């Protein structure tokens, strides 16, 4: 049953993205920034999906600490790992965008900088998990760390935004203003597609995590015999 759900969702993602690619190419050019502006269709949804992922990881971690059920720990890992990939997409596309518009590979604007810090927080989570071998301890400590880290995400975002407004820097683009309605719809569709992709990858990773736990259990049984 799970397999079928995954396949259906993948198909949905493929359809949505193909349709969107067509729609994006047909849209008129954005006046000031030109073609590169279309990168927003990946840049923003990837960030939105990753941030939602961090919220899910926070909830999953709290639930694990409360219920001690390992499926919550598996969910936290899966969501964070996929979030790492999606944030990487956000950072790389943002960097390319900055290079085309301003000629610099990195612009210290609030959103990109927050995304970078979030990426480092996620990476810290994965490194901590690798350093701990005993499964219960690993799950518990990872959950504690993720509570600290993901509570930090909104704080990081606001503090860097204050930092950047007090020391003004070039702003990437203003979402308000000239965002025509057909652009918004294309963006919304791509958002849905990215979120679906995120969910699919998370489910695959989740299943792998559960299989890994079964393997560990089997291994212990075999060695016990």
């Amino acid at each position, binding site marked *: 049953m799970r397999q079928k759900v995954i396949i259906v969702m993948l198909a949905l993602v493929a359809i949505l993205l193909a349709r969107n690619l067509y729609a994006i190419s047909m849209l008129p050019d954005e006046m000031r920034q030109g*073609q590169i502006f279309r990168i927003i269709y990946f840049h923003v949804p990837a960030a939105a999906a990753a941030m939602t992922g961090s919220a899910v990881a926070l909830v999953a971690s709290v639930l694990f600490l409360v219920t001690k059920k390992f499926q919550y720990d598996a969910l936290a890992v899966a969501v964070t790992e996929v979030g790492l990939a999606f944030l990487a997409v956000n950072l790389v596309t943002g960097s390319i965008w900055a290079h085309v518009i301003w000629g610099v590979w990195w612009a210290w604007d609030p959103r990109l900088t927050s995304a970078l810090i979030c990426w480092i927080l996620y990476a810290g989570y994965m490194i901590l998990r690798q350093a701990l071998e005993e499964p219960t301890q690993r799950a518990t400590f990872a959950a504690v760390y993720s509570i600290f880290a993901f509570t930090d995400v909104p704080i990081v975002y606001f503090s860097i935004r204050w930092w950047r407004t007090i020391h003004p820097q070039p702003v990437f683009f203003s979402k308000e203003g000239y965002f025509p309605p057909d652009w918004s719809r294309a963006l919304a569709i791509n958002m849905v597609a990215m979120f679906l992709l995120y969910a699919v990858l998370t489910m695959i990773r989740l299943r792998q995590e559960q299989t890994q736990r*079964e393997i560990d259990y089997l291994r212990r049984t075999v060695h016990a015999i």
Partner: protein
Amino acid sequence: MHLYTLTPVVAFLLQADADAIRDEIGRLQRNFQGLIWGFVAAWVILAAYTLMLTFRERKIRREMERLKSMVEESEKK
């Protein structure tokens, strides 16, 4: 005679315009290239991660098979 003096002026003006056009074409090309690279990067990263997942899946499955056969063997004994 007037045409003679005018022509270099016209030629000069056209030349200036051609430069601006060339710049604009360069900018558009760079812009478009940037877009393509951006899309490529996004898809490459997602594909790389999906590949990582598939490799891990295969490794896990192999491990599972191995362990299952070990359990069966020891049960037969």
